[in-house]
């Protein structure tokens, strides 16, 4: 087991055991769905029905029901397609790229982000299918033997590349997600009591047993799939950008499209993850697993990719002038100052300017602000695709073909419908699937759990015992017999009888003024009455205890968050209250959570 540096903020807050992790993640599945869930799924369901209605009407009547015209022959449909595919990029990035980089914080979000990816790609795939006009011959995009003189699909075409890229991405993403879900389904299978649920989850869990060999394979499969999915995720949006970049339309014919589309996709994907996860953590009370630090990490990704996108916009603008191609120059001038100036400047504001606010730590650690920003970014990224697609083609070469695109109610209906279907799928996922990887979270509990890092509760004394065996895992690949002769095992949860406790006991008999000399305050830091927080927010601390703590010199929640088991002993001696109570109520854990909620 690898010991993580103390200065790293714990990824799992509070005093958690393995059992607690299982309980916390499965609780929403086992308990009844809250009223809010039913309300949300009804709203999303209505939107979905409306969207399906629009699609049926569209198929029955024809693409003419969209607002397309002779110049703008691609508009909302492809905008929505690229937008949804872009959103679908965060999931695989989180689960594959961050896995390769060993970013443990991804475990709070990877399951839900992958689900988001899969549903988003489903929504994306719908648009090209509809745009083909005849949905029922959609399989013609695959190279199948046929009776048209055996006419094959064109392997030179970016549109066919897209077919392969999106379908590979979708199916590999689905498999990756499902392999991770199997052990967690097994956990649910072994817990639920209702016969129906038991049956369903035992089918879903594929008879997972959790043997050592199975876990060995599990880890390698995850790693290799991550290795395969990493170039895949970059290839998918690169290929989506080829749909435009390989054409000769000014404004589309741009070599920086692939990297710029990928950065934009990650940007919008993370924004969508923020939107969904900030709601999910609150609704399911998962604040201990997904706290401010996780949100901050994601905001750092958003600011990075947002800046890349910003640089790309400006490069594009510069090159259009520098290239000396007047059509190219006009396309960009027209974007910024033509009839679609409002779309261009909404895109610029939402994607380039607003994410820069995340340079302020106060803002990027503020959850409400992050939530608002995530929605702004998603709006901005929709406009980006709209701007690229529509403004480049709405003024065709001959001024007589200059047009303006007006969406019809079918355009809007289909888009809103996909949002609805996505919402329904996501809500079903949140209700019946484990929204965080239970097994994976357990693997980081000892290295990144607050109780283990600070040595209290379930983690009391763990690293004191194991610190010296830090590299045990690899060096002891084979067992040496002589080592085992000595009795390795003996429960040694030591009674805390350090000199500090003795000192504290003496202090109670003398004066309380000397308290600041105690080592206690070296650990938790001092505070004055002016900084006083309401300590009663912590369950287990009443008004009496609060005033006693104030007398000692503990005024702030921040101080309490740093308390360890030893400190509880000292406080016990000082306040004549029960140590066990402070420990059971987990004051430090509660305090850390309170700090994170602000």
């Amino acid at each position, binding site marked *: *087991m690898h010991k993580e540096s103390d200065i790293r903020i714990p990824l799992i807050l509070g005093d958690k*055991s*393995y*059992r607690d992790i299982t309980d916390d993640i499965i609780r929403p599945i086992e308990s009844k769905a809250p009223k809010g869930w039913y309300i949300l799924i009804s709203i999303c369901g209505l939107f979905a029905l409306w969207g399906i209605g629009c699609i049926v009407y569209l198929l029955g009547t024809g693409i003419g029901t969209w607002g397309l015209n002779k110049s703008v022959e691609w508009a909302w449909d492809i905008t929505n397609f690229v937008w949804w595919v872009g959103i679908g990029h965060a999931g695989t990035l989180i689960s594959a790229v961050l896995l390769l980089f060993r970013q443990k914080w991804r475990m709070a979000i990877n399951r839900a982000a992958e689900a988001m990816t899969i549903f988003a790609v489903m929504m994306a795939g719908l648009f090209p299918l509809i745009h083909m006009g005849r949905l029922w011959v959609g399989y013609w995009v695959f*190279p199948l033997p046929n009776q048209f003189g*055996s006419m*094959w*699909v*064109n*392997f*030179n075409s970016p549109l*066919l*590349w897209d077919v*392969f*890229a999106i379908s*590979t991405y979708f*199916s*590999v993403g689905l*498999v990756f997600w499902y*392999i991770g879900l*199997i*052990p967690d389904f*097994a*956990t649910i*299978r*072994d*817990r639920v009591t209702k016969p129906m649920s038991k049956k369903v989850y*035992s*089918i879903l*869990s*594929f*008879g*997972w*047993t*959790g*043997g*050592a*060999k*199975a*876990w*060995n*394979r*599990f880890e*390698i*499969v995850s790693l*290799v*799939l991550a290795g*395969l*999915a990493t170039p895949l995720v970059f*290839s998918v949006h690169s290929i989506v950008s080829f749909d435009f970049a390989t054409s000769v339309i000014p404004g589309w014919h741009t070599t920086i499209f692939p990297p710029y589309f990928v950065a934009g996709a990650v940007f919008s994907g993370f924004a969508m993850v923020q939107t969904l996860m900030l709601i999910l953590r609150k609704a399911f009370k998962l604040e201990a697993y997904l706290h401010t630090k996780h949100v901050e990490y994601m905001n750092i990704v958003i600011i990075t990719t947002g800046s890349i996108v910003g640089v790309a916009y400006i490069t594009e603008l510069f090159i259009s002038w520098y290239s000396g191609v007047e059509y190219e120059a006009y396309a960009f001038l027209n974007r910024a100052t033509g009839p679609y100036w409002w779309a261009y400047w909404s895109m610029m504001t939402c994607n380039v300017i607003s994410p820069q606010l995340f340079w302020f730590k106060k803002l990027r650690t503020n959850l409400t602000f992050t939530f608002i920003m995530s929605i702004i970014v998603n709006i901005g990224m929709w406009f980006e695709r709209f701007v690229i697609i529509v403004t480049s083609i709405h003024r065709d070469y001959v001024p007589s073909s200059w047009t303006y695109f007006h969406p019809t109610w079918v355009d809007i209906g289909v888009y809103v419908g996909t949002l609805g279907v996505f919402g329904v799928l996501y809500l079903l996922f949140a209700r019946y699937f484990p929204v965080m990887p*239970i097994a*994976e979270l357990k*693997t980081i509990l000892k290295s990144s759990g607050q109780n283990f890092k600070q040595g209290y509760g379930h983690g009391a004394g763990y690293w004191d015992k*194991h610190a010296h065996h830090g590299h*045990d895992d690899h060096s002891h690949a084979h*067992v040496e017999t002589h080592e*085992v002769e000595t009795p*390795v*095992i003996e*429960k040694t949860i030591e009674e805390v009888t350090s000199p500090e406790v003795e000192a504290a006991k003496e202090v109670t008999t003398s004066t309380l003024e000397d308290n600041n000399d105690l080592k206690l305050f070296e650990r938790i830091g001092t505070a004055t009455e002016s900084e006083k927080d309401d300590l009663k927010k912590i369950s287990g601390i009443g008004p009496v205890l609060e005033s006693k703590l104030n007398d000692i010199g503990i005024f702030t929640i921040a101080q309490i968050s740093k308390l360890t088991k030893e400190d509880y002993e000292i406080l016990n001696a000082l306040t004549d209250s029960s140590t066990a109570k402070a420990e059971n109520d987990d004051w430090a854990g509660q305090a850390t959570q309170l700090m994170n909620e602000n």
Partner: protein
Amino acid sequence: MADKVIYAMYDDDDTTKDAAKLLVAKGVHVSEVYSPFPIHGIDPIIGVKHTRLGINAFLYGITGLMLAMITIRYMMIVDWPMNIGGKPNFDFFHNMPSFVPILFEFTVLCAAHGMAFTYFLRNKTLPGMPARNPDPRTTDDRFVIELKLEDNHGFSAEELTALCKQTEIVEIEEKVIK
């Protein structure tokens, strides 16, 4: 012939690892360890060999690449050559650059799905398979070491139980399987 199996249960991954070390050092063959999450470092102790699934994935990938090349060559060069934007269509090699995206995608598709399918088969995890973990708690917070009498000829059931009791077990169970 009926065989006896001993299940020693632990409540922590580190104690499980220590126990496995002790048992193996005494010459006991550990047939399986059930855990709710991967215990890092236990495989070499109980003699689980490193999986070859990675090699599998590579082979599936190569197969996919070959298949894609053969198919595309047949369709684009042999069967119905098309002049598309003046791209060379007289042989595979000259036309290949514009086939790269699909060659790549198909390689990944085959590698990923081939490996996933092999993984399901080798783990015997398929829809409808019964769960074979000895105790439902092993997918929650319990760890079980499984010892088969059949694999440990030098020991009697009592001796094995006694050895297990030297470790930090929380529960021990003996079962007869047919």
